[in-house]
C-alpha cells in the first residue's frame, strides 16, 4: 500500500508572511484543498489567505471542547488529549483524507495552528513537515491592527504589547512541538523579500528533499509570488529598542532569527517566560472584540474571524488563574 501523501504545515503568527509562504508551497506543488474552501482574498491579503475553512472550523470547535482559553499555556496539551476521542479523530482524519485524496502532499495553514500541533501529531500517520515563518513582531503588530479593525479604531489602538504576547504564546507552543521533528524550516518574511533568490532556493531544496518532485518550474513559479510591493508596515524603530517589549520576548526573536539563519537549536520555553497578566489580556481582547462586533456594525467580524474565534457565553476554566472570577 503506498504511503499517504505528506502533510505540510505553515506555522507562524498572524500577519507574519504565513500566506506568502503558503502560496509559495502551493506554487511548488502542494495541494491546499478545494479553492472554493480557501476563503476570499481581501484588502489585507490581496493574494488570498490559503486557509482551509473546514480546518478553521475544526480548530474553533476543538478550542471550545478543550474548555480552556487558547491563551492558557495548558491549551496545547488539553487540545492534544482530544485526539483520543473517536469523534474528533474521525473528523480530523476525514479532513486529512479529503486533502490527500489527489495523492499530492497537502497543506494546512492557519496562524493558530501552532497551538494544535500535539493534536495533529496524534492524528497523522507521521509528523507533518513544517515551514515556520518569522517576521519582526513590531511590523506584524502594526499590520494586525490595520487588518483587524476599522480605520476609526485602528488609528488609536496600540497593540504592540498585545500582539507580542500573542506571538510569544504561539512560538512557545510551536518550538517545543518541533523539538522532535527534524523536518522543519524556519524562514524570515524579511529574508524572503530582501533575498528571494537565496531564500526560495533554500525553500525549494527543503521541499524537494522532503516531498520529492518540485524542480525548475516550481522554483520559477515561486519567484512570481514575491512582490516586495506588498511589504508594508516596515517600522523604523528596532524591535529590540521598544520599551514595551519584555526582555524574554526580545530573546525569543533573537532565537528565531538564529534558527532562520543557522538551523535548529534547543529551545527551552521556561527561558522565555510569559508575564503574569498575559492570559487575561489576550482573553479580554478576544472577548471584547466579539462583544463589540455584536453591537457595533463598524466592528463587525469577517467570515474568516467567525470561523476562527471560539465564542463563549461565559469565561473559560480558570484553574490556571486561581479560580477567582473577577466579573460577577
Amino acid at each position, binding site marked *: 500500500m503506498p504511503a499517504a501523501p505528506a502533510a505540510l504545515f505553515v506555522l507562524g503568527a498572524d500577519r507574519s508572511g504565513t500566506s506568502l509562504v503558503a502560496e509559495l508551497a502551493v506554487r511548488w506543488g502542494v495541494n491546499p484543498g478545494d479553492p472554493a474552501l480557501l476563503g476570499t482574498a481581501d484588502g489585507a491579503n490581496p493574494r488570498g489567505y490559503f486557509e482551509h475553512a473546514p480546518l478553521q472550523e475544526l480548530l474553533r470547535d476543538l478550542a471550545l471542547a478543550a474548555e480552556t482559553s487558547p491563551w492558557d499555556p495548558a491549551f496545547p496539551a488539553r487540545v492534544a488529549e482530544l485526539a483520543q476521542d473517536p469523534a474528533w479523530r474521525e473528523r480530523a482524519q476525514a479532513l486529512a483524507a479529503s486533502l490527500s485524496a489527489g495523492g499530492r502532499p497537502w497543506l494546512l495553514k492557519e496562524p493558530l495552528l501552532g497551538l494544535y500541533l500535539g493534536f495533529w501529531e496524534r492524528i497523522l500517520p507521521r509528523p507533518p513537515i513544517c515551514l515556520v515563518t518569522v517576521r519582526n513582531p513590531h511590523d506584524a503588530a502594526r499590520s494586525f491592527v490595520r487588518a483587524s479593525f476599522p480605520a476609526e479604531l485602528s488609528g488609536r*489602538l496600540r497593540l504592540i*504589547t498585545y500582539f507580542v504576547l500573542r506571538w510569544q504564546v504561539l512560538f512557545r507552543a510551536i518550538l517545543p512541538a518541533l523539538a522532535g521533528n527534524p523536518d522543519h524550516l524556519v524562514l524570515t518574511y524579511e529574508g524572503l523579500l530582501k533575498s528571494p533568490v537565496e531564500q526560495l532556493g533554500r525553500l525549494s531544496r527543503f521541499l524537494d528533499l522532503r516531498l520529492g518532485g518540485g524542480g525548475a518550474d516550481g522554483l520559477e513559479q515561486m519567484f512570481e509570488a514575491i512582490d516586495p510591493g506588498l511589504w508594508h508596515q516596515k517600522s523604523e524603530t528596532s524591535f529590540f529598542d521598544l520599551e514595551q517589549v*519584555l526582555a524574554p520576548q526580545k530573546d525569543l526573536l533573537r532565537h528565531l532569527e538564529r534558527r532562520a539563519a543557522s538551523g535548529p537549536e534547543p529551545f527551552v520555553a521556561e527561558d522565555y517566560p510569559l508575564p503574569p*497578566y498575559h*492570559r487575561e*489580556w489576550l482573553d479580554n481582547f478576544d472577548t471584547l472584540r466579539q462583544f463589540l462586533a455584536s453591537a457595533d456594525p463598524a466592528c463587525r467580524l469577517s467570515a474568516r474571524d467567525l470561523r476562527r474565534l471560539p465564542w463563549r457565553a461565559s469565561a473559560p476554566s480558570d484553574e490556571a488563574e486561581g479560580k*477567582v472570577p473577577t*466579573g460577577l
Partner: protein
Amino acid sequence: MVSRPILVLGAERSGVTLVSTLVTLWGAQAAPAPSALNAEILAAAGGGLWSPALADRLAALAAEPAWRERARALIASLGGEAGPWLWTAPFPPQLVPFWEKFIPDPVVVAVVRNPLDSTRSFARARLPEKLARMIRLTSYFTFRWQAANLTLLELAQRHPDHLFVDYEKILQSPVEQVRRLGRFLDVTTGAAESCDERLLPMLEAVEPGLWHCRTGPQFFELKQVLEEQKELFHYLKRRAAHAGEPAEPFDPARFPIPYYAWEYLQNFEVYFTEKEGAVAAG
C-alpha cells in the same frame, strides 16, 4: 473654620463615596466635581488618563495663562465663609497634578480598599452582566488601582495634611475610624468646635450591609497580580493604620508600573470606555 479645600480621592470603587459622605456630615460643603472642565483638561493633555507622561503634561498645562485663569476663577467661586469645601468622585486622582497648582494647601483624604474587591465592584458597576460573566479584569483593574494610588501617595508626599483611610476598617470598626477621620479634619481645618457632636450622624452613614464583593486575602494569592502590586497594597494598609507622619517613607521605585501596562490601559480606554454604549447594547 478656614475655607480650606478637602480632597477625598481613591481608586474607583474604593469607598470614596462613603468617605465623602462622612466628610460632608462632619461639616464640609461638597462642591461639584468639575467634570466638564476636567474632560477639557484631559483632552488638552493628550486625551487619556493612562499615560506615564500625564502628570508632567498637566503641570505644564497649569502654567499656561488661559488654563490658569479658568482654574483660578473656578477655585475662587468655591471658597467663601461656608467653611471647608470638598472635591471628590468623580474626580480622577490623576488630574490632581493640574489642580494642586491652584489649591496649594489641600487637606487630602485617601481611601484604600482591597483591589480585588474593587475589581469585582467595578465589573458589576461598569459592565453589562453578560460581559461581566465572560471577562476577567483583575490584572487590568489592578493597574488602574496602582496608577491611582501612586498618584495619591505622591500627593501625600507634597501635602503634610493627609490621611489614608481603610474602607474595610471603617466598616469593621466604624466608631474608631469615624472618630479618627473627624479628629483629623478638626485639626487640619482648624475647626473651632470638636466634631464629637457630629459623630453620631457620621456613624449612622456607615452601613456594613453595603460592603459587597468581599474577597479577603485572595488578592495576595493571585498569579496575575505583580509582587509590586501586592507590596503596594500592604504598604497602603500600613499607611492607613498609622497615625500621623508615616514611619515608612514612600519610595515610588518600589512600586513601578511596567511600561507595557500603559498600553493595556490605553487600549481598554479606546476599546471599552469609548465604546461603552455599544458594549452595553451588546
